[in-house]
């Protein structure tokens, strides 16, 4: 279970708080959506969960399976099952996609006390998962994310998620930059990973993604706070009314 209590966060070296007291409880088997306008702190929350050191936690706690993760490095968190699907996946020229995938998978397997996969076995698993997500083998031969379209990058993220089999998935605006076909493929990939052992936090600006990945709960984040929580129908309501009512007035 993910438990966020009274979480306050600011950018390191700056004064302004971006998250101003977040409380959230997400159990395994559940999918929660976080919706909110631009600048509400959605991406900050995603980065803080993954351990990006540009941010400073000034108050509150984050525990995953009862363990405080706030002092852990990003790789330690990944080993504990935390996975962030990036809004803007990073291009790394010179690092072959397959080398990256194998290094990542083996690092996580090692941390979990599992054996490294043999090369043929690794190849088989990657090919299988890539096919499901319609990632061409040509893309796997390229340097990581280099020259990929926005949609291709997002599919790579879901491919990584599918290979690493994390237990806490944080999807940061995975729908941005996707056309409807790509959105369906990505959503199918995500839905295939839903299960009783896995918790998911789906961050999005638009309701559209939630037609395909149907959440158990929807939280509205505005100005660094969760201002409303409801069922999946809340997303539809927001689609009609917009975020205006959660603007400055809610602060």
């Amino acid at each position: 279970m993910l438990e966020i209590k009274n979480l306050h966060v600011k950018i390191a070296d700056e004064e302004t708080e971006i998250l101003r007291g977040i409380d959230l409880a997400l159990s395994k088997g559940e999918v929660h959506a976080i919706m909110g306008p631009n600048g509400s702190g959605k991406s900050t929350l995603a980065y803080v969960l993954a351990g990006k050191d540009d941010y400073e936690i000034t108050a509150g706690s984050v525990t995953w399976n009862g363990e405080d993760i706030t002092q852990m490095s990003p790789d330690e968190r990944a080993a504990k099952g935390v996975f962030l699907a990036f809004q803007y996946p990073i291009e790394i020229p010179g690092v072959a996609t397959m080398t990256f995938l194998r290094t990542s998978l083996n690092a996580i397997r090692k941390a979990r006390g599992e054996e490294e996969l043999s090369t043929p076995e690794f190849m088989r698993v990657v090919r299988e998962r890539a096919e499901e997500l319609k990632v061409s083998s040509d893309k796997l031969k390229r340097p990581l994310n280099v020259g990929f379209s926005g949609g291709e990058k997002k599919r790579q993220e879901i491919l990584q998620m599918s290979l690493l089999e994390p237990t806490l998935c944080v999807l940061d605006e995975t729908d941005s930059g996707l056309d409807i076909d790509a959105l369906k493929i990505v959503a199918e990939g995500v839905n295939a990973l839903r299960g009783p052992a896995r918790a998911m936090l789906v961050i999005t600006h638009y309701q559209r993604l939630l037609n395909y990945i149907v959440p158990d709960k929807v939280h509205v984040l505005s100005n660094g706070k969760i201002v409303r929580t409801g069922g999946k129908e809340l997303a539809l309501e927001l689609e009609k009314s917009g975020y205006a009512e959660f603007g400055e007035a809610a602060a």
Partner: protein
Amino acid sequence: MSVEVLKTKAEQGLADQYTAARSGLPGAGNGWAEGLREAAWETYSSAGLPHRRIEEWKYTDLRALLRDAYPPAPALAEALTGEDVLAALGPVLAGLDCHRLVIVNGQFRLELSDAGGLEGKGEVFSLGDALGDPSHWLKQTLAQVNPPLNDTVVALNTALMTGGVAMRIADKAELGKPVHIVHMLTSGEAMSVTTRNVVVVGAGAKVTLLESYVSHGSAPAQRNAVTELVAGDGSQVHHIKFQNENPETAHLTSWMTRLGADVSYDAFQFSLGAAIARNQIFVAFAGEGSRSHISGAVLARGRQHNDTTMVVDHGVPGCESREFNKLVLDGSARGIVQCKAIVRKDAQKTDGHQMARALMLSDGAEFDSKPELEIFADDVVCGHGSTSGQVDAEQMFYLRARGIPEPQAKALLVAAFIGEVIEKVENESMREAFLKLTESWLAGEGEGG
């Protein structure tokens, strides 16, 4: 007018060595060879070792860096076997399929070499022997291939050279395997080694030449090596250097290259070792329609000092030059890239570009980059660039968010950075070897730590 120059201890040592050795150096008794040495000694001794007030040597002050002149390596080095040569090369390069020519402490060692007669497409002999009875072509070539003006390190080499490889590749010859000149140092005591190679590639010939510089043992050494290379019209030459000498070595090498017409010249230098390394490359375009692509990779840590200095001289129209250097600098290492492109008045339609990039892994490392363009023609495309930076924080976070621990993530990014330039090596076995050596270096092995 004669001005008495105050000599440093090393300069005095060199002068004593020349006086003591001159009558015993290869070619003694041959008027041409003696004349060559005398003239070179004059050039050297009028200025002495280069120092920081000589513009080209601003960052590598040999007067300050060389405290002593080590005694010359003995004429016949200790008994060595082929196994020793392979051990000095290291497991990665020992397996390379090539025509191997071995120079130990300045002497070409036929019994350790395996040139296979160059497949009947050329000739190889010992330069030291040839100086005693020089052939016509050697007299027309030695010390005349694009000699740099007033470079006293090259002059010192001509004055004191003990040997090396003299090689000619026949016109239109295509060698099936690379020629690998192994420059090996082996000694229990401090010594200096001065070697010279002369390579003439015939018109239309295709050759890959690897020069490796390695140590067998950990004794201090001073190396001064020069390779003169003439690329005939229409030839294709890949010229590669690998340097992994022990961390007590001062390494000075100069490549003097002249390209004919329609030549394709690809050079690559990979530097890992030595305490002080100065890699000089002088390329002259003597025929139209040629291209010269020079790239380099430097991995330095500890207190290593690595200076790559190049002069590319466009004397004729329609040639293309590229210089691309990448350096990874850790600890208190210092990396230097100086690259001068000269485009002479007649060299219209010159296309020249240079780039130097350094990746700094510590606050104590230093990178100095000095690009220079001297352009006297008006219809040319020339450019230069230089960058230095640290490992990208966003890329690091991305890799670590995927479970890759920090040291491994950093190693991946550094390998990616330097890999871009190693990828330019056409020979697959060498490329793979260099990538493997990079991995070992990143894992903390190798010289210079």
